[in-house]
């Protein structure tokens, strides 16, 4: 935990934003601990987790544009200083993130730099498991959000809504694998449906609704889940029917998912956790084309999402955070791409965020085998959203105890 500058209060940060000074402000330290649990946590708070799958190159996302070392290691794929969206006199965003920069200027973005964990793993699969289970040392089946759900709703307590937590996609991500809580994975509104031979649907419902327990120990659990599966699609469509989307979303899978997320959140479907994914950021060759396209897709989608939420006056209750399984190597490779690396920045976005930059950019000269050194453990960020946003004791979900960041 070196290289931290002192923390400027959020009020000062906002004052700076409103004034004429450049956007050089608020390097935050992690040391502050926020108020005790249970105080001022709004029960309507929603967490949206955005997976940037494939390993996003942090150096071309948050660019240390004034550092000569950056231009030496990125002679071809480096982002030109005059195109960078400057955050201060040293770092700035990739120009593809113009929409995210707008959110930043509105005070809705916290940038956390140098995030990682000890002994980083460079396998997509294993590193993703590490981030999603929050368990770098031992393989664990349950996800960090799954454990949050299990602790919140123990074996005999059902969540108030079947859409309490939702994965937007065809399969359940490890992050949401829980033991007791049944999390639906919804690829699309139309695709989440019991598709039977048309005139057999009513009878299927009768069979599930009338299923009697007791023939076999597991039958009751299966019948109960079958009822959720059978009725879930219709329930989803009924829930969101009254919601009017009040923003223009780009037409791509990621934005369609955020649009559905806003429908769920805004229509009182009871949704508190949403997981969406965008990718692939695995840019081994010709990185700029692919990464810039995806960053733009992500920024534009998020801008539409928050415009939609703001129009419904719920943007202050929705916090989005990004993650990726790893950053990439500092030096570009021979194919004008980058290979698997380590530490990276992540974004926390929302109307309630204390806007600013948290932690220094990792050094480009003090490297670990050619890779960036992390200074903020990713579980610090998880602990922050668990404690300060969801009002849940992080130690209940994460093995060990972690500091929190004052970003929300």
């Amino acid at each position, binding site marked *: 935990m070196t290289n931290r500058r002192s923390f400027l209060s959020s009020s000062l940060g906002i004052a700076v934003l409103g004034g004429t000074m450049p956007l050089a402000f608020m390097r935050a330290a992690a040391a502050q601990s926020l108020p005790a649990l249970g105080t001022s946590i709004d029960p309507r708070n929603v967490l949206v987790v955005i997976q940037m799958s494939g390993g996003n190159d942090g150096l071309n996302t948050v660019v240390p544009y004034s550092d000569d070392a950056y231009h030496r290691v990125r002679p071809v794929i480096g982002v030109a200083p005059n195109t960078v969206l400057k955050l201060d006199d040293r770092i700035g965003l990739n120009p593809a993130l113009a929409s995210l920069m707008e959110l930043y200027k509105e005070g809705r973005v916290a940038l956390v730099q140098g995030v990682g964990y000890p002994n980083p793993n460079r*396998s*997509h*699969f*294993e590193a993703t*498991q590490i981030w999603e289970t929050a368990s770098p040392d031992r*393989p*664990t*089946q349950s996800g960090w959000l799954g454990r949050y759900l299990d602790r919140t709703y123990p074996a005999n307590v059902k969540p108030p809504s*079947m859409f309490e937590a939702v994965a937007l996609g*065809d*399969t*359940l991500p*490890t992050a949401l*694998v829980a*033991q007791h809580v*049944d*999390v*639906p*994975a919804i690829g699309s509104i139309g695709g*989440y449906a*019991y*598709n*039977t*031979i*048309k*005139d*057999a*649907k*009513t*009878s*299927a419902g*009768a*069979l*599930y609704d*009338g*299923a*009697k327990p*007791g*023939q*076999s*120990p*597991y*039958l009751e*659990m*299966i*019948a109960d*889940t*079958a009822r*959720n*599966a*059978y009725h*879930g699609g219709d329930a989803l469509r009924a829930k969101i029917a009254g919601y009017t989307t009040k923003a223009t979303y780009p037409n791509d899978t990621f934005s369609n998912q955020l649009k559905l997320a806003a429908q769920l959140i805004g229509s009182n479907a009871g949704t508190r956790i949403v997981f969406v994914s965008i990718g692939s950021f695995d840019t081994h060759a010709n990185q700029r084309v692919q990464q810039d396209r995806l960053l733009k897709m992500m920024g534009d989608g998020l801008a539409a999402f928050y415009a939609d939420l703001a129009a419904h006056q719920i943007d202050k209750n929705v916090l989005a955070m990004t993650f990726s399984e790893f950053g990439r190597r500092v030096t570009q490779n021979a194919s004008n791409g980058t290979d698997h690396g380590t530490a990276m920045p992540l974004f926390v976005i929302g109307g309630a965020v204390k806007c600013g930059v948290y932690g220094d950019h990792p050094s480009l000269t003090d490297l670990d085998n050619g890779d960036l050194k992390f200074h903020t453990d990713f579980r610090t960020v998880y602990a922050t959203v668990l404690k300060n946003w969801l009002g849940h004791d992080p130690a209940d979900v994460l093995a060990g105890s972690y500091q929190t960041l004052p970003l929300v």
Partner: protein
Amino acid sequence: MRDIKLDTSTDPQVGFRPPGSLDGEPLAPFAGRFSTRSAAHLLRRAGFGGTAGEVTRTASLGMEAAVDSLLHASGDDLAFPDYPPSDVLYNVNGGIARSGTQTWWLDRMLRTKRPLVEKMTLFWHGHFATSIDKVPAALMAEQIDLFRAQGMGNFRTLLASVSVDPAMSVWLDNHYNTKAHPNENYAREVMELFALGLGNYTEDDVKNAARAFTGWTYNNKTQQVTFNPKLHDDGVKTFLGRTGAFGLQDVIAIIVSQPVHQRFIARALLEYFVYSDPEPELIEGVARTYALGGYDIAKTMGTILRSNVFYSTRAYRAIPKSPIEFTIGLLRYAGTAQIPPNLGYALRRMGQEPLAPPSVKGWDGGPAWINTNTLLARFNYVNALAAQAPPRADAPNIQPDAIVAQAGFDAPRVVEAIVGAALQDDVTRDVRETIVGYLTQSDAVGSVPFGPENYQQKIRGAVALTLNLPVNQLN
């Protein structure tokens, strides 16, 4: 056995079957009547289920001969390739290599005449869980071949083979394990997940086993594991209370001689093939069979598959089907000739993409198979299969003409035929009545009684309703 009563006194979801709760001699050979229900149960557990005709044939063999035919499949199997085609295996498109290798294996599960061999192969794949997410397809195929060749043999030999298997070496980094830089990953999993279980060894045991495993290096070019004595730590180690200049074979010999190991394997087999939370006496009994049989898996499986407890009400329909068991069972039941191209993806949605377990712990299985997403994926897979399956003369179980030929246009008889063939009639009367109602009644959304004009669609509907009953999720 029509009046079978299913035991609900011990709920595996809640837990534990207490000592002393088993009556009689649970592992003595089953002496009751080997009915079609018993035969269907055996085929589901020791294979992937079968058609109604296969169930009848198996029942007619009697229990001993039926189990023998699974354990010692004497007839020649169909000719299956040892590897997927090389243009699949080494395709630059990883997705093609992945799905092609999955289909290569799934096809064998579907068509093999030696279903227990393939079921054991699947069991060991879950036990020594290795993933194509990290390991090249060619090495995965080779590992599956290893499980098939040795999975019914001696566990000591199997564990030794797995320890120098290229896929495992890459998966758990044993190829980085050298005298100078010991890597404990593989040694730890051998003890925790493969052979002993947590709490039955110390951290020092892990360190010393890792030292004994050093020197087995994987060559990326030849894709082979060979022993390099220069990288092997030949010093003295203390492992599980024994001391010597142990190597890989010594450590494995010490592991299998541990009573905790014997109980570990006994429990794993019982949970997979009989029921969850087996009673301590039952674990003890199977562990004894396993140890006395010299760690022979086929002998141990023979005892299990012939036993009273295997055919007891406690074991009947007591295990949630895995997605692979569910889909392969379905395709076998329907008489499908080849693996549908989307099966790997469907299995992913159901939570068990073959060759891609979520971690080295494998799939949790049991009730963890069942959630809204996975169940919806199963339901819709059945609905699509029933709606689209081409009418095939050799698929009488779901073929409307064959069912009408058998039962006429008499709805109760049609339902009896379908429910009897698909579920050995393991349904309550009101379930049967609901399906009869579907065939005979009109409703507001356009359902009309079935007859010569619409029986094709109506019978497919009735088949789908039957195959999607909660009880069909249970093995």
